[in-house]
C-alpha cells in the first residue's frame, strides 16, 4: 500500500516536472514541448495500470474526457496566446498545470488527496480568470472564490469530519475512497445538504448560480473551455463518488438536486435567448446543461441506468463545450467581437472554421451521428421507462428536456448565424491567420464528438437502445461521409469572396 502510494506520488511529481519543463522551453523548442505535453497528458492510460490503479467505468469516462480535452485545449491555447501575446511560456504554464491538476483529480485514491487537489484546482481556476485581464477581473475573481471556495470547503471538510468521527483523525488522512464504503457513514438531512452544497455550487445550481456567467465570460476563452468542459465535471465526479460511498438521505438528495436542476435548466436555457454575446449564450447554455445533469443525477436512486446516462452526458457536454468555447475564441480572434449582430459573415472569411463548427451546431441540436443525439435519445427513452415508477417526476423532467431541446435549437441557430447570416454586417478588419494547432485542436474536438458514441455502444446503456442507436449511428456516419464527398466534388467554388453584398 505504501509502495503504491510512493509510486503514484513519484508519477505525479514527474508529470509536474515534465509539464513545467515543456512550458519552459515552449518559446524555443516548440516541437519538443508539444511531444512532452502529449506524453504527459496521455500518460495516465499507460502508467496508471502499471502502478496498480484500477480503472472503473467512472474513472475511464472522466479520465478520457480530461486527457483528450487537455491535449486539445493545451494545443489550442498555444496558438491563442501566441497571437495575443507573442511570448507564451509563463501563461501557457498556468493553463497546462490547471489541466494537469484536473487529470490528477480524476485519478486520486485517497480522501485527503481528493480534498487538497480540489482546493488547488479552485485556486488555479481563479488564476485562469486573472490570466488575460489581470486585476481588472478583480470583482469576478472575488465572486468566484467566495462562492465556490466557501461552499467547497464546507462539503469537503464535512467529508473529512464525518470520517474522522468514525475512525479518528489520523486514520482519516490515509483512508482511501474505496474504504469509505465499508465505514457505512450515514448522513442526516442537514449533513446531506451540506455534503452536496459545495458540488452543486460548482455546478452553479440556483440559488448559488450568480458567479458562473461573469466568470465564464470574463475568462479568456481557452480558460472558459477548461471551466465549462472539465472543471464542472469534477463536481459531477464528486457527486457520483459521494453518492456511491456514503449513505446519504435519499429523499433529500433526490429532491434537492431535482428542484435545483429543474429551476436551473429552465433559467439557463431561457436566458440563452436573451443575449447577443455568443460567449454569454454559451455560458447560459452551460448553466442549462448543468441543470440537466443535476436532474439526471437526482434520478440515480430510482434506476441505475441514469448513472451510465450521466456519464454519457458528461462526455457529450464536455467535448461539446470544449469545442464551442474554442470556437468562440477563434471568432474573437478573427473578428474582435462576440456580438452576433455584428457578425454573420464568418462563413465567407473563414471557411475552414465554418466546416468544423457545423459539427458543434449539429451536436448542440442533437442530430445524429453526434453525441448530442445519442445523449438526448437515450435520456428520453430511459425517462419514458421510468414513467410507471414515478409518473409525476418523470413527466416534469420530460417537459424540461423538451423545453431544453427547443431552446437548444433556438440558440444553436443564433450561434451558427454568426457564420451564415450576413445581410447587414461586414468585416471590421482583415482577419488574422490562425495557427495550425488551433485548426487541428478544433478538428480533434469536433471529431471526438462524433467518434466517442462508438465507445458507449460497447459499454451498453440498454440493449434495446443500443441496437437502434448502432444502426442510426452507422447510417448517419455514412450519410455524413457521402455529403462531404458530394460537396467536395460537385459544389461550385466561388473564386471571389463576397462580403455583405459588396464585391471586394
Amino acid at each position, binding site marked *: 500500500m505504501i509502495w503504491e502510494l510512493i509510486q503514484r506520488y513519484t508519477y505525479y511529481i514527474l508529470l509536474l516536472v515534465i509539464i513545467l519543463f515543456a512550458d519552459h522551453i515552449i518559446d524555443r523548442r516548440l516541437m519538443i514541448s508539444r511531444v512532452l505535453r502529449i506524453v504527459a497528458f496521455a500518460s495516465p492510460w499507460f502508467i496508471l495500470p502499471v502502478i496498480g490503479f484500477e480503472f472503473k467505468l467512472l474513472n475511464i469516462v472522466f479520465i478520457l474526457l480530461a486527457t483528450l480535452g487537455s491535449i486539445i485545449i493545451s494545443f489550442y491555447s498555444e496558438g491563442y496566446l501566441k497571437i495575443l501575446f507573442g511570448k507564451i511560456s509563463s501563461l501557457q504554464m498556468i493553463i497546462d498545470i490547471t489541466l494537469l491538476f484536473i487529470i490528477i483529480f480524476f485519478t486520486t485514491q485517497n480522501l485527503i488527496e481528493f480534498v487538497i487537489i480540489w482546493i*488547488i484546482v479552485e485556486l488555479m481556476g481563479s488564476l485562469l480568470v*486573472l490570466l488575460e485581464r489581470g486585476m481588472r477581473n478583480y470583482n469576478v475573481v472575488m465572486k468566484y472564490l467566495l462562492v465556490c471556495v466557501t461552499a467547497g470547503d464546507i462539503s469537503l471538510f464535512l467529508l473529512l469530519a464525518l470520517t474522522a468521527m468514525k475512525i479518528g*483523525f489520523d486514520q482519516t488522512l490515509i483512508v482511501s475512497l474505496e474504504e469509505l464504503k465499508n465505514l457505512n457513514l450515514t448522513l442526516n438531512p442537514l449533513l446531506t445538504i451540506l455534503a452536496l452544497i459545495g458540488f452543486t455550487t460548482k455546478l452553479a445550481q440556483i440559488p448559488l448560480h450568480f458567479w458562473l456567467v461573469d466568470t465564464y465570460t470574463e475568462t479568456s476563452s481557452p480558460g472558459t473551455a477548461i471551466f465549462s468542459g472539465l472543471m464542472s465535471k469534477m463536481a459531477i465526479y464528486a457527486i457520483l463518488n459521494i453518492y456511491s460511498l456514503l449513505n446519504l438521505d435519499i429523499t433529500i438528495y433526490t429532491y434537492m438536486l431535482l428542484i435545483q436542476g429543474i429551476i436551473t435548466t429552465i433559467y439557463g436555457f431561457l436566458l440563452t435567448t436573451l443575449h447577443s454575446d455568443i460567449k454569454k449564450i454559451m455560458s447560459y447554455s452551460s448553466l442549462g446543461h448543468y441543470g440537466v445533469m443535476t436532474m439526471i443525477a437526482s434520478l440515480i436512486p430510482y434506476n441505475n441506468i441514469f448513472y451510465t446516462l450521466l456519464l454519457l452526458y458528461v462526455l457529450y457536454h464536455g467535448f461539446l463545450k470544449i469545442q464551442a468555447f474554442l470556437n468562440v475564441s477563434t471568432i474573437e480572434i478573427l473578428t474582435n467581437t462576440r456580438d452576433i449582430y455584428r457578425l454573420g459573415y464568418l462563413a465567407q472569411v473563414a471557411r475552414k472554421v465554418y466546416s468544423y463548427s457545423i459539427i458543434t451546431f449539429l451536436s448542440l441540436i442533437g442530430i445524429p451521428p453526434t453525441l448530442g443525439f445519442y445523449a438526448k435519445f437515450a435520456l428520453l427513452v430511459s425517462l419514458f421507462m421510468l414513467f410507471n415508477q414515478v409518473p409525476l417526476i418523470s413527466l416534469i423532467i420530460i417537459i424540461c428536456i423538451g423545453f431544453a431541446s427547443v431552446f437548444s435549437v433556438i440558440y444553436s441557430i443564433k450561434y451558427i448565424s454568426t457564420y451564415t447570416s450576413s445581410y447587414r454586417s461586414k468585416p471590421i478588419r482583415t482577419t488574422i491567420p490562425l495557427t495550425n494547432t488551433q485548426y487541428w485542436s478544433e478538428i480533434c474536438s469536433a471529431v471526438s464528438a462524433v467518434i466517442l458514441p462508438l465507445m458507449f455502444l460497447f459499454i451498453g446503456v440498454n440493449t434495446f437502445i443500443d441496437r437502434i442507436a448502432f444502426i442510426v449511428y452507422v447510417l448517419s456516419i455514412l450519410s455524413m461521409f457521402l455529403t462531404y464527398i458530394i460537396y467536395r466534388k460537385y459544389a461550385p467554388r466561388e473564386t471571389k469572396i463576397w462580403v455583405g453584398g459588396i464585391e471586394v
Partner: protein
Amino acid sequence: MNSTLIYFLLSIPFITVILGSKIRNDNQKYVVKSISYTSYLSIVIVLYSMELIDELSLVYTISIILLAWPISLYTEKYTVLNRYPSYLPLFIDLFSLSMITAYLSPNILGLITAWTIAELIGFILIGLGEQHSIEGSTRASQNFLFISALTFELSIFTLTYIVMTTLTFILGATSSLEALTIPFWILAKNKIEVPSILASLLIIGFIAKSGLVPLHFWLPSAHSVAPSPASSLLSGVMTAMGVYGLLRINMIIETDLQPLIYVLLTISLISILYGGLQAHMQRDGKKLLAYSTIAGNGFSMILLTYYIYTGDIDVLIALIVSILAHMSYKATFFLDIGLAEQITGFRYIHRLRGLASTLPISTLGGLLAFLSIIGVPPTTGFTSKLLSILLTISRFPDPLVLGIFISIILFIVFSIIIGLDYVKIYFGKPSIKLDQRKTLLEKNLLQQYCVLFVGLTNILFTLSILLFNRFTSYVIIYILASPLLLVLVYLINNVMRRET
C-alpha cells in the same frame, strides 16, 4: 538557585541588544542582533527541557522569536530610509524581547512586569509614529494607553488581587508576593473560585487587548499610525495576548462560564462582521490590515469559546494554530506594506500597483501570506480552517456549535475578501521605471529577504502541532504537500508580472 539562573539567562539577550545598538557597522549590528535572538531561542529550549515552562509558552515564544528576528533586521534600513530617530531599532528590539519574556513567564509576577514594560514601549512607538506620520490619527497613542493598556492593567491587577488573597493560605505561601511566583500549572491544580462580577472584570482587559467590539476603537488608529515593524509586532504579537491571557485565566479560575461563553461568542461574531466589513471598505492598506486584525482576533476568540465550552485538547490545538496563522500572515502583510510605503511614499491600496516587479522577493513572502489567509493547502491558514471546521462538524446537532460553525464560515468569507483586496497591489504596471528598480532592489535587498522569511513562517508554523503529539500523520502529509506551494507561488507570480 533556579530563579537566579533564569534571571541571569534572560538578561543576556537584553544586554546584547542594548550594547549592539551602539555599534556603527551595519553588518556587525546584524550579527549581534542575530546572536541575541538565537540566544533567546536556545534559552527558551533549555527552560522547556528543564520543565520550567509549559507547551503553551514554548509555542508562543518560539514563534514570536522567529517573527521578531527578521522584523528586527528589517527595522535597521527602515529607520534610515524613512528618517525615523536612530533609537527606533533598539525600541523595537526591546518591545519584542519584553513581549517574548511576558509569554515565557511561568507565573503572574513575570507576566505583569514584562507586559507592562512592553505596553509602555508600545505607547512610545505609537507616539513616535504619530509624530512622524502625515496621514494618521493624532490621538492614537493616547487611545492605546487609555483603552488597551489601562483595561489590561485593570484585569491583570484583579487577577493579582484574587490570587494574592486566596492563595496565601491555601498553598502555605509565606508572603502574599510569593503567591504570585507560583507557576500556572500548580495554580491550575486547585482552581480558585471567583464570583461572576470579578470574572467580568478579569476578561475585559483581554477583550480590549484583542481589539474586539465594543473595545476596538483604539486598534485601527494605533496599528496604522505606528512604524510598520511596530505595527507588525502590535498586530501579530501583542493582540495575541488577549487569547493567551484568557487561556491562562481559564486554567486557574473556576466560575460559572455559561454567561461568559455567550458574551464572548456574541462579541466575537460582531467583531468578525464589523472588522471584515470595515476592512473591505478601507483604502489605506494599513487600516485594512488593522481592521482585519479585529476580525482575525474575533475568530481566535470564537475558537477559545469553543475550547472553554468543550475542554477538548484538539480544539486547543486548532486554537493555537489559528493564532499562529494570524500572527504570521499579519506580520508579513504589515512588513510588506511598510516596504511598499517606503519606496512609493504612500500606502493606498487602490493606487499601489505592480509591486510584483518592483519588489520581487518580498512579493513571494506576501504571496505566501495571501495563500495562507485565503486558506490554500498546505499553509497554516488552511490547517486552522480545516481543524476548526472539522471539530465543529463533529459535534453538530448542538445549537451553540452551529452558531460557532456559522461564525467560522463568515470569517472564511471575510478573510478571502480581505486577502483579495490586499493582493491587488502586486498586479498591474508599476509606476517606477526599470532602471530605478535595480537600484531599489540593491537598497532593499535585506528588507525584502526579511519579508520573505516572515512569509515562510506561514508554512512553518503548522509544525507546532508536533508538540502536542496529535495529528502526526497530518504533519507528514503537510510536509509532503508543501512543495506544491512553491509551484503555486511561481504560477501566481507569472500572472502578476504579465502586464509589466
